[in-house]
């Protein structure tokens, strides 16, 4: 497990370094993510220890949002004042996003599939 964590922290540090000195518009962890994918593609595989740590993170990802999201206490009056706009925007955009993504992927993938079969 420790070796998996070392690998993750190594790529996170590399990402932070690249973000600080080369690509300041991208968050460090996102650069680390891309570097790790490139590394996995080059090595053609995930080692067991890395998979174990990564799966642990994905399983409890939700817990990691809690400290920042509790900051909602600082925004309660603002959220209340804008409640209608926020709820409508979130519900409306979720419906539009899922519908658009689904329609585009089906429309573009149905035709060549039929030719192939």
């Amino acid at each position: 497990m420790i070796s998996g964590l070392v690998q993750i922290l190594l790529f996170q540090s590399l990402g932070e370094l690249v973000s600080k000195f080369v690509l300041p518009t991208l968050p460090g962890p996102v650069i680390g993510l891309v570097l790790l994918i490139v590394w996995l593609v080059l090595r053609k595989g995930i080692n067991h220890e890395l998979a174990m740590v990564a799966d642990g993170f994905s399983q409890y990802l939700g817990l990691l949002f809690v400290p920042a999201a509790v900051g909602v206490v600082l925004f309660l009056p603002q959220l209340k004042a804008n409640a209608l706009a926020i709820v409508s925007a979130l519900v409306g955009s979720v419906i539009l996003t899922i519908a658009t993504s689904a329609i585009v992927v089906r429309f573009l993938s149905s035709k060549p599939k039929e030719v192939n079969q």
Partner: protein
Amino acid sequence: MSEKHSIVEIWVYLSGSPLFALFITLAAYQIGLTIYKATKQNPLANPVAIAIILVASIIQFVEMPYSTYFEGAQFIHFLLGSATVSLAIPIYRGLSSLKGRSLPLLASLIAGGLVSIVGAVNIAKLLGADSSITGAMYPKSVTAPIAMGIAERIGVSPTLTAIFAVTTGILGAILAPFILNALGMKAWWQRGFAIGIGAHGIGTSRAFSIHPEAGTYASLAMGMNGVISAVAIPILYHLFN
């Protein structure tokens, strides 16, 4: 020393150490998980939402300032960066299942990603939301760890972004089956991909619990959407603000 006095001293000691913040955060999440399992994984009983409400209520009740709470809970918060990096593993696993489907998937990702931003920002603006709220709407369809990184870069509140992102995930997990059935979507990979774009992490775990292929494509969509959005959202944001 009177008994009352010593209780106050214990409280002063506890509230000054990170222990209290760590304890209530983990305990609240554990309670959330228990409720989630007891309701047979009903998306309305989302463990993250339950934990946020519980911790927020507790710190309001004991009158602990948010900054004091966060000082302790920052050890959990720090791991968000590492969790973002580990998203590389599900994306890498998903890449092998692309099977020549990359063009429709990429087109769907760009269309869905744009609609989520344009839709959310404009609906909020039309109904009179102020700019701090519309700003935080930009990254809300991105998985929360990446969304908060983007929020910091464009100078909007990472907290509001996290809240909108978590709410979006819950709404997406609840609404997706109805939307996809109404559209007559049958292929698991297409359903999963649409859920991953619209409802990121919470939608992805829902997709995994329904069908493994849907889950793989949902995590691929979530990861790719996160990476592309991290590049595109700062550009879009500065274009319109």
